[in-house]
């Protein structure tokens, strides 16, 4: 995918695991199901025709999310360069984060219950800046711990204080 500034020269992007699609679809389904049930109940109980528009809106939002999730996961990528880590995400609202190894304060590996069931984990880098949003979701657990160890080792080697 050649996206101009979001695809710097000489960078080979690594994709995340497709199991992230499954996990995200499940959580989207859950977050759509509850309002759907509520709005359908309202429409059935009040028996006024136009209230069926509410469940229709919820269903439309759900379909939009279902279409979007696989494309979003395909757009996620990360690349380990010599001195920094690049993370890209987003289709409509694209973002690219460059995190120097020497600036990393913490590396977190997280997996909630749904993630564990789906067989993925999330790696998050913390710097001294609160606005660094360096998150790589959807890695397999082995890849996540390998990445964490490599990042910690590189961060240690290039430690640059604050």
């Amino acid at each position: 995918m050649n996206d101009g500034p979001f695809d710097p020269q000489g960078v080979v992007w690594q994709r995340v695991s497709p199991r992230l699609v499954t996990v995200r679809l499940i959580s989207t389904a859950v977050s759509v199901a509850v309002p759907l049930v509520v709005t359908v109940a309202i429409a059935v109980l009040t028996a006024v025709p136009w209230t069926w528009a509410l469940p229709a809106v919820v269903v439309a939002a759900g379909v939009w999310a279902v279409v979007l999730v696989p494309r979003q996961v395909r757009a996620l990528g990360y690349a380990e360069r010599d001195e920094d880590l690049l993370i890209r995400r987003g289709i409509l609202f694209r973002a690219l984060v460059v995190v120097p190894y020497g600036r990393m304060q913490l590396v977190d590996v997280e997996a909630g219950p749904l993630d564990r069931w789906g067989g993925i984990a999330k790696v998050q880098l913390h710097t001294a800046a609160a606005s660094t949003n360096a998150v790589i979701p959807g890695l397999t657990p082995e890849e996540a711990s390998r990445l964490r160890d490599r990042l910690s080792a590189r961060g240690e080697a290039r430690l640059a204080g604050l």
Partner: protein
Amino acid sequence: MTTPTDAPAVDGDLGWQRFHPVTPVVKGWKIFVVLLFVAGQQVSTNVSSAQQAADALGWWPVLVGLGVVLLAGLGYSTLAWRMTRYAVGEEAVHLRQGLLFRQHRAARLDRIQAIDVVQPLLARMLGLAQLKVEVAGGTGSNVELSFLREAEAQQLRAEILARAAGVRFEPAPGPGGTVADAPGATPTGTPRGAATLPGVAPEAPEREVLAVQPGRLVASILQSGAGLASVVAVLAVVVVAVVAREIGPAFAAFPILLGTVGYLVQRFNSEFGFRAALSPDGIRLRHGFTSSRAQTVPPGRIQAVSLTQPLLWRRRDWWRVQVNVAGYAVTEQQEESILLPVGDREEALLALWLVLPDLGAQDPRALLDHALSGEGDERGFVTSPRRARWLDPLSWRRTGFALTDRALLVRTGRLVRRLTVVPHERTQSLGLEQGPWQRRLELASVALHSTPGPVAPRVPHLDQVEAGDLVAEQARRARTARAAAGPERWMAQLQAEARAAASPAPGPPPPSPPPPPPSGPVAPAPPSPAPPPSVPPS
């Protein structure tokens, strides 16, 4: 940083000390005032029923109740004071506190971002002060030593700064001890003889550089956005009350007025008597009316600087300088992050010089003038392209950045002019963002992530190729600058180097020395003749 496991081992070697015995009174008084305030709020929401309750009980029980609350607060504070101790070790400042939940907090000296001496009103009247040691662990991770005698607090601050700087200490020897080597020795001069000090650290000498007159402060506050809004609101309420001959609307608007006027008063209170001084320990800031605060920010701890000019200050060309310092809590007022509350252009540029003595440009003054009030792409500024006017019609001509050898300058804003300066070695991470409209116009925004604070360096709406180039270039410059940056302990390397220079063996390569205090008269002329610090071979 808390050290959970090695507290018992550390206990023995440190000299644990208690705080001043009057501390419980000051802290208990604060608890009492807070409770009184809460009670007052409850009463004011329902005055009539409170009145009835008071009449039914009579006044004595109410007073006795208040007395009991006061004594309870005092008792709790005394217990807490007995359990609290502090010590300053070789590597960290230690604080032990807590009644039920014991806590031992150790703040590493080489992680210190700033040291403040704060005197709330009651403490000031009693001659006490509070010492706050800020490390970069975010809000709530700082070490607060309260309360000490004023002189003791100053002394302790000097000692902590000397240790953090890397000056080695000996406990006080007899009268025939080693020759003193003051931490205030000029950094470029050669320290004489031994690199150790007797027990008492002399405070590093300082040189006052900036001061804000009260008249100018009041005028600037009234001419700020909030000030104007408050004045208009007060006038509106008065006019309505006079014209309608009713006092009702005034009472209804009272809480809002209290809020806005209260904000102005608080701002005046915290910025009164502002003075900035330069010392080898870093930048020293003093300000405060009822509660006075003296901040010390050691060299290299300022992450980003911003100079802003609201529309109403443009006539007098006043600027406000704010900084990001890791460890200062992000509160609404941001009173700790102000480097200069108001000053004319010369003073603002002098404040910028305090942070970044060498801008790394050929003609710094012209560059800065262009950055502060110019527009267009002269002097190496890269600005938004013309098509950005669809997204930012007001300030697209002014939005732009300039890269110098030492820093990145970001210029934004037309009504509220803003210049943000980030030294290369203080760049944390970089972000490149593009929304759907921006992609249509082939634009992108670049954000430099910095520690939490009032300064958020961001260049919106650049041409996307230039934005990508900026990210790559900034990453490269940040990497080079990090490799060449001075050490955390800013005096240690100098002393080691001086000792090595005194001995025949080859010493370590010289680092960039901390900014030297300005010699000669303190003319508020921004300093292009400042000597550039030496950059070691990377």
